[in-house]
């Protein structure tokens, strides 16, 4: 029975009991418990079900490598699936439920799969469900999908918050065991800025469980002393509950701090994602024990030997009353000794090595523990928990010599250094034959921007399993890292650890060595995904020889623990099946994160309103309080229309158009890009950027310009104003401002770096307001100030002055076909100026209008819109904009491209106006069909609509479109798709629907 021992655990505080619930049952644990230790203390061995066969699953490990102990935690906004119980600290009120079973953990219908297991070998689904075809979609797939997944999907919005933290350090030490502590202390002594992080809540790692002597003290005392020393160093920061999640190029490291998982009632963010830039990284991440592959090694009650010891020493929990130990190394004897000290029985230690163990074995024998050399577990008995083992010779095929009853099995197959972080960014591994482990190849570390090593592995993570070696290795790693980061100090004494000498392990990849199919098909490699030794062997038999193929074919190592327990055993099995050495099999790729990290932490604060910055014009506040219907335009939100009470959006647009055409409208055009281009070569630069000439534009004048990509496609347009001799102001589209500014800089910095030109994006420096309509001038005259008459300020000119007391720059440009002034005032004055215009305009019927009205006005006038008439495949010539392409210039961006054969093809579609015969509106996106089909069986087309609106001014639908030979086909009727399989007839007309002569804007 699994229970709390009378011996106190190192980490728990029995004075502080804590209530929690599991599957609705209320249980008690202590402060300092993990959910795993607390469940075990309550004899809750069965904690979940496996993925494929729904086998009963119990805890196997005590740390991050745990594959089985996953639960649904919390409820509603704090619900979280797949929470690993070995790393979940117990808190008051914790409520957990087990996963992946129906109807209950104890009685799971899905466990029928266990009995069908022989029909469900690795990759079975590739070979089945092929016929008949409809059944896959309707029966098999839904069934497979239904049985997929472990935890439940969260339903509610996350009630917690998250944050990011950026920092730069000289030396980052990952791992707070003795090697990491020694590294941090030594690096700290040099004055380097050091950050030491530890994923659990406690310092000291494994050493404090086994308590070797360091510098004459117990390991625990040494840890306390060292921590005090670190705390005294101002240049050193230390953090617990912070995991090194990933190592990326150039010393970029991701760490994951769990601030409130253990204290959900505290305030503040739940997780913090650290983005660390470190000059040097020390990975002192320890090692993970390997399971042994014997039949029934997946039953609840079979644990790693180190975990059994951890539960006893750290948490005062005995997993069983009688624990059989199976091992191939000396370390597992420590578990026997610890259990014996705690008053628990160890009926036998089965040491697979023919010659058995060393001094620790002697100690065990001295305590009266039976030790059997060359023996192995043939199989484990039991259902939902272990009831006994049958013993056999390791060298044989599993003939049972003896049955021993027990309620716990502690297994140890040796240790694997945690090389994940070392490997993420290209660190290579080497196979250590003697210790049967992959360890960092220190000659091939990950390199940083300067080509030098940026990661140093230290301690057990570097393959040093002895205390003395590990601590010395940590010390020198800290020293080397500081040195590489430019810091040194006089060396002091290396911490001195002492060890009990151990005999070497013997690799044991199958127990017993000659196990037949029957045993191999019950020997688990991957406990969560249900991958067995026989599965990997089948993969090899079927030619899935690459370790990546074997992994994918069997799903080995693809579970939530990413193979921390299973990978080495799996690839050793593969190596055996292929009869090639382990290093030739190699490992699969180590990818971040080390253990899963929450999406919430990755997203940080960027959610809801903060998801992306909302850019606001100085006038946005007015829009918000005046019933603006917003639409996102890039990161801006622009009013689509201002909807009066009782109006539909459509009505509002109609009203705004009519009012602008008859009275006067007001548009917040502040989002338009405004890029200042200045310098002796500015004219030459703009001549390259725009298709037309800008260098010869007179000061005080405006000119409409087009910009093309190198491929000749039209990418932006806008009015350019010449401010003075060497200064131009370029207006871009709202969406284009940042892009065009970057585009300019790209050319200036990369290609024409010797041209004397400076650019500045002034978009947000000015509020720009368009006063549009026949009464526009009257409004401005009423405001008083500069002369805005046609004579003083003709069409396509600009002037500085004041209007109504505001400093203003006024452009006589029009995107609507009406008399129009675009007035820029300093951003700080924008709102006041807007208000002043509105009150002056009241008597003239002034009304603000939104983007949809703007679109309709420009469409009525036949003006193109970037993004509607253009889509990245349209050149200015397609839009009959040849007039805006200078014939005088040798070159401009896109010119050469536009000379290519397809660009000059007379059969390109050209811009025209379109009108339905019945006045209805052509649907957005409609294509004009042509006779017949192309060789791929697609209907031929001869054009498409680019802009289509209901025109309140004309009282009917109007559109523009690109049509084959369009301008030569005026009056012809073509058929456009309606989208429902039918067609609508449309006549090709002039694209200018309103004021063809252009009289209204030039008054």
């Amino acid at each position, binding site marked *: 029975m699994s229970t709390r021992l009378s011996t106190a655990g190192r980490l728990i505080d029995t004075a502080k009991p804590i209530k929690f619930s599991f599957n609705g049952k209320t249980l008690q644990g202590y402060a300092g418990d993990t959910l795993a230790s607390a469940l075990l203390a309550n004899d809750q061995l069965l904690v979940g079900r496996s993925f494929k066969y729904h086998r009963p699953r119990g805890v196997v490990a005590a740390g991050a490598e745990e594959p089985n102990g996953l639960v649904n935690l919390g409820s509603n906004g704090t*619900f979280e699936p797949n929470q690993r119980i070995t790393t979940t600290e117990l808190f008051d009120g914790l409520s957990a439920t087990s996963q992946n079973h129906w109807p209950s953990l104890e009685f799971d219908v899905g466990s029928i799969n266990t009995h069908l297991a022989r029909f469900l070998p690795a990759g079975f689904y590739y070979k089945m*469900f092929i016929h008949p075809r409809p059944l896959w979609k309707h029966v098999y797939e839904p069934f497979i*999908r239904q049985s997929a997944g472990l935890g439940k999907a969260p339903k509610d919005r996350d009630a917690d918050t998250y944050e990011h933290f950026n920092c730069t350090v000289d030396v980052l030490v990952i791992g707070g065991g003795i090697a990491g502590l020694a590294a941090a202390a030594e690096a700290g002594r040099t004055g380097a800025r050091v950050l030491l992080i530890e994923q659990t809540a406690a310092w000291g790692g494994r050493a404090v469980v086994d308590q070797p002597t360091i510098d004459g003290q117990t390991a625990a005392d040494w840890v306390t002393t060292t921590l005090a020393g670190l705390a005294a160093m101002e240049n050193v920061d230390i953090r617990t509950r912070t995991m090194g999640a990933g190592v990326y190029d150039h010393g970029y490291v991701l760490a994951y701090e769990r601030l409130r998982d253990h204290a959900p009632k505290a305030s503040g963010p739940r997780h913090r994602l650290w983005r660390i830039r470190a000059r040097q990284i020390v990975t002192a991440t320890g090692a993970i024990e390997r399971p042994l592959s014997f039949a029934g090694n997946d039953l609840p009650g079979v644990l790693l030997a180190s975990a059994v010891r951890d539960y006893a020493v750290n948490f005062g929990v005995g997993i069983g009353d009688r624990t059989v130990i199976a091992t191939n190394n000396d370390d597992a004897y420590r578990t026997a000794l610890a259990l014996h000290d705690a008053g628990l029985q160890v009926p036998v230690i089965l040491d697979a090595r023919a010659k058995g163990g060393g001094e620790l074995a002697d100690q065990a024998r001295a305590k009266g523990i039976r030790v059997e050399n060359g023996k192995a577990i043939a199989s484990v008995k039991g259902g939902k928990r272990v009831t006994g083992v049958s013993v056999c010779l390791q060298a044989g095929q599993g003939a049972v010599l003896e049955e021993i009853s027990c309620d716990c099995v502690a297994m140890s197959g040796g240790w694997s250094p945690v090389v994940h972080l070392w490997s993420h960014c290209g660190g290579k591994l080497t196979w250590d034959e003697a210790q049967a482990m992959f360890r960092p190849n220190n000659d091939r570390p990950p390199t940083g921007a300067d080509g030098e090593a940026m990661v140093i592995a230290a301690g057990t993570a570097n393959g040093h399993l002895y205390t003395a070696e590990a601590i010395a290795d940590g010390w020198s790693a800290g020293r080397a890292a500081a040195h590489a980061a430019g810091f040194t100090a006089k060396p002091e004494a290396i911490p001195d650890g002492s060890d009990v000498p151990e005999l070497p392990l013997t690799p044991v990849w199958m127990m017993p060595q000659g196990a037949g199919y029957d045993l191999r098909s019950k020997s688990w490699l991957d406990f969560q995904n249900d991958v067995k030794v026989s599965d990997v062997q089948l993969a090899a038999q079927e030619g899935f020889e690459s370790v990546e193929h074997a992994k994918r074919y069997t799903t080995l190592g693809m579970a939530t623990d990413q193979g921390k327990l299973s990978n080495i055993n799996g690839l050793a099995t593969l190596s055996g099946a292929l009869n090639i050495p382990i290093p030739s099999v190699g490992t699969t790729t180590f990818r971040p994160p080390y253990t899963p990290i929450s*999406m919430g932490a*990755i997203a940080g604060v960027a*959610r809801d309103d903060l998801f992306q910055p909302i850019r606001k014009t100085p006038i946005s506040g007015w829009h918000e309080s005046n019933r603006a219907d917003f*639409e996102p335009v890039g990161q801006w939100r622009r009013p689509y229309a201002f909807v009066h009470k009782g109006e539909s959006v459509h009505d509002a647009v109609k009203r705004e158009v009519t009012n602008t055409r008859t009275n006067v409208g007001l548009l917040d055009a502040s989002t338009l890009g405004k890029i200042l281009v200045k310098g002796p070569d500015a004219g030459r630069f703009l001549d390259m950027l725009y298709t037309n000439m800008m260098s010869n534009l007179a000061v005080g004048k405006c000119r409409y310009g087009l910009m093309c990509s190198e491929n000749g496609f039209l990418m932006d347009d806008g009015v350019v104003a010449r401010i003075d001799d060497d200064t131009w102001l370029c207006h871009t589209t709202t969406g284009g401002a940042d892009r065009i500014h970057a585009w300019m800089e790209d050319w200036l910095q990369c290609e024409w770096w010797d041209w004397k030109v400076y650019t500045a994006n002034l978009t947000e420096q000015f509020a720009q307001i368009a006063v549009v309509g026949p009464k526009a001038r009257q409004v401005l005259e009423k405001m008083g100030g500069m002369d805005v008459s046609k004579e003083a300020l003709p069409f396509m000119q600009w002037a500085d002055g004041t209007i109504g007391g505001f400093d203003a720059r006024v452009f006589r440009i029009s995107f609507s076909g009406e008399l129009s002034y675009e007035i820029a005032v300093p951003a700080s004055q924008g709102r006041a100026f807007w208000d002043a215009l509105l009150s002056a305009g009241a008597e003239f019927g002034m009304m603000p209008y939104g983007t949809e009205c703007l679109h309709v006005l420009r469409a009525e006038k036949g003006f193109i819109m970037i993004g509607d008439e253009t*889509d990245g495949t349209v050149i200015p010539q397609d839009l009959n904009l040849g007039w805006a392409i200078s014939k005088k210039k040798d070159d401009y961006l896109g010119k050469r491209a536009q000379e290519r054969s397809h660009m000059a093809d007379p059969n390109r579609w050209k811009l025209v106006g379109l009108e339905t015969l019945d006045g209805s509106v052509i649907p957005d*996106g409609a294509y004009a069909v042509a006779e017949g089909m192309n060789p791929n069986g697609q209907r031929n087309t001869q054009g498409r609509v680019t802009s289509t609106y209901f025109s309140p001014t004309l009282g009917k639908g109007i559109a523009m479109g690109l049509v084959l030979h369009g301008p030569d086909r005026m009056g012809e009727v073509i058929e456009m798709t309606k989208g429902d399989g039918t067609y609508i007839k449309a006549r090709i007309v002039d694209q200018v629907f309103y004021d063809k002569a252009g009289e209204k804007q030039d008054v």
Partner: protein
Amino acid sequence: MKRYSVFAIAREAMRQHTGWDRAWAKATPKKKYDAIIVGAGGHGLATAYYLGKNHGIRNVAILEKGWLGGGNTGRNTTIIRSNYLQDPSAAIYEKARSLYETLSQDLNYNVMFSPRGVMMLAQTQHEIRGYQRTAHANSLQGVTTEFIGPHKVKELCPIINIDGPRYPVLGALWQSRGGTARHDAVAWGYARACSDMGMDIIQQCEVTGVRQANGKVVGVDTTQGSIDCDKLGIVVAGHTGVLADMAGFRLPVESLCLQALVSEPIKPCMDVVVMANTVHGYMSQSDKGEMVIGGGTDGFNNYTQRGSFHHIEETVRALVETFPMISRLKMLRQWGGIVDMTGDRSPIISKTPLGNCFVNCGWGTGGFKAIPGSGWAMADLMAKGEPGPLAAEFSMWRFREGKFIDESVAAGVAH
């Protein structure tokens, strides 16, 4: 080849699965082949398969420098759709999609094609118009798509937040027969079928040189020796530039890292594939229960197959916004693949300046869905020496003529 079926499984179950053959034979290079395909990704394997199946050319070797399917084919997020805008794209992707419908039966290998439906969200007015245009185009191209409103979006995918404060969902382009398939199975299924036709799949065999005489290809040098061939197909995705260099020509292709990630597995909660281009991310749920997530490419050219974390951050942020419930799921694994991007983001299936040497590349971020169609078209080109209608527009010379097939018009994220 022993056929796979439920009966075969039952038979093998009775004898401890000892009777299963290798899925594909182990092969060493012969002196000469009628055709060599470089690259055993999906596109290379499918090319070989249709060379054999449609054109009877079976003396074929497929050379792979690593393990077959280990490039982008084994790294992608498996979205299959054909709702492309431009005619040539819609034609080849729809050809591919329709071949996927029966691929499991054709190959006798369950590739788990799952036409669960793909929706591309419209979150701006501009996107609405763009997708409406695509729907109109698709209706003429024989591709079944539909523009649906926000309520239908919510009905099909209840976990979407359709009224997020920043970019509310305004509608979506919906292709009900789009979906996903198991990427490895596609590679393995084709490989098994190729092997069964007597073709040699040679892994751990890197092509290091292209040999030519009189302007024509005559063979390749590899890490397993020189091999002669009459025809050569280069189908190496992110390494196309390297191979083109060996063959003595240049292509307008850049290699970039594209990343993806998965969450831990959870019970089914999402029955469709959703792409959100305004916020830049997409998500589906694998048959194993993981949420499969991807976004845009890294900004700089590289070959490392690992990207920068800030791209992951950007993608996850976009998806937490779109699907708030994933906030409490955890990222299990992230990875990257090297994608081959052309100037117009459309592929190249083309003859080359070197006689009898053909290239199939440029599938970039979205070529998994094209595998059967691309193999079909490439096999046609290699067998006949001239492109058929499916490949005609994808010539490498289109860049010289300015005859782009630009799909970025329709979608910022083209997976």
